[in-house]
């Protein structure tokens, strides 16, 4: 069975589990929306909120992602599914790509919701010319985040008492995504006079990030989930 086929099957399984349990839609999305509201409480200044809206979208994504990642591995540990897959000889690279794909889909849904929240709550403005840049940014950033989340999530999933390690490990790693995605989104929004052309180099960085962690993750995942 080819790695791609394994990936597709595992991604489909993860998404089917989500469709049936609706944990992301019922718990994570409300949490993300709540985070956006709390930002407004904390920052208490409409002009500031509009200006930092891109950053807040990605910040809320990062925090909600921690919950998403833990969820994606919680479904595995419940019945020892991950161990079973390994024992059955399923190539870990395929498991990695599959879970990343499912995580990316869930992240994409999350980000769309957050974007809408930003437009509604912070009066963020999307310039028409910036839409292509915006889409490219979201795709590139989401891919990178999905790879990193699956990789470190796999490590933090194992024995009890490890979940608290996930934020410490993951958040520093995704710093380039936070910086790059925010700058590119600002360029797409036209915040602070940034033009679309300024955003594309950042998209390049995001693509590089995704490529490196996609490759690294495929190679390293097996060793990290080995108990």
């Amino acid at each position, binding site marked *: 069975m080819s790695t791609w086929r394994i990936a597709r099957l595992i991604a489909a399984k993860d998404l089917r589990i989500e469709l049936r349990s609706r944990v992301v839609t019922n718990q994570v999305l409300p949490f993300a929306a709540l985070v956006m509201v709390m930002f407004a409480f904390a920052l208490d200044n409409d002009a500031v909120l509009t200006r930092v809206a891109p950053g807040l979208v990605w910040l809320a994504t990062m925090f909600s992602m921690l919950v998403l990642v833990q969820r994606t591995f919680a479904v595995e540990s419940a019945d020892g599914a991950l161990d079973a897959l390994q024992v059955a000889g399923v190539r870990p690279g395929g498991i990695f790509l599959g879970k990343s794909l499912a995580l990316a889909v869930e992240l994409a849904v999350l980000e769309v919701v957050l974007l809408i929240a930003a437009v509604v709550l912070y009066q963020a403005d999307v310039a028409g010319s910036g839409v292509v840049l915006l889409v490219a940014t979201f795709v590139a950033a989401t891919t990178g985040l999905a790879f990193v989340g699956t990789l470190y999530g796999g490590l933090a999933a194992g*024995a009890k008492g490890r979940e608290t390690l996930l934020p410490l490990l993951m958040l520093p790693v995704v710093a380039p995504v936070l910086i790059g995605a925010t700058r590119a989104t600002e360029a797409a929004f036209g915040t602070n006079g940034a033009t679309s052309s300024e955003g594309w180099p950042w998209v390049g960085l995001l693509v590089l990030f995704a490529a490196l962690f996609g490759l*690294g993750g495929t190679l390293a995942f097996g060793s*990290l989930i080995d108990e």
Partner: protein
Amino acid sequence: MTPTPTPSPGRTAVARPTGTRFTRVLGAAVILGMAWLVLFGLFLSPNDEKQKAGVRILYIHVPTAWLAYLAFIVTGISSAAYLVKRTRSLTWDRIAGASAEIGVLFMGITLVTGSLWGRISWGIFWTWDSRLTTTAFLFVTYIGYLAVRNLGGTHQQRARRSAIIALLAVLEVPLVHFSVKWWRPLHQQESVAEGKLSGLMLFSLFVGLIAFTLLYVWLLLHRQRVLAMEDALDDQGLDVALAERRAEGAQV
């Protein structure tokens, strides 16, 4: 017939737990070096024209920064050495761990002294320029690495996991460096700030560099040996437990 493990040595203290003649000589050199650093750094060298007394902090801050980077490079190389089958040995894993720990210690000192220097030279404890931010990132990342080392499991599992995390960290560093550099380019003024040191000031910097390098080697040797002893104890405990289990089976 598996040999029964030799009984644990008595609890009498060991004269030199992790020391050898080399480390004793090295240790003496470290103490001497540090004494010279204090002597020159605090007393014999002059104040800088622009930074005044602030330059004295740099005699610590710059060497610890360099040694921290060196320590993390050693961790990276040792981690790679462990992962390559031909050179696989838990000694590499222990060197990686020891070096990372010392790197975190030195980097912590770098951040604190840098912050104090910034306060007296620039009036601010911190600024989000590319160098400082990357340094802070490295610090947090290797703290995470040390946490991963304590996740438990067999020594081989620990070694493999940590080695991968270390190499991923090496992968991230350029990504973080570039993203922060594009985000906050180094201001012109700050590069002028460090300027050029000469004479006794440059000498003091060298003293600091040599003293901290010697200290790094000394710490690495001792820390790595303590890790080796701890691993040996783990294995001993396992041997004893296995022997007891077999003894139980034999009695039945």
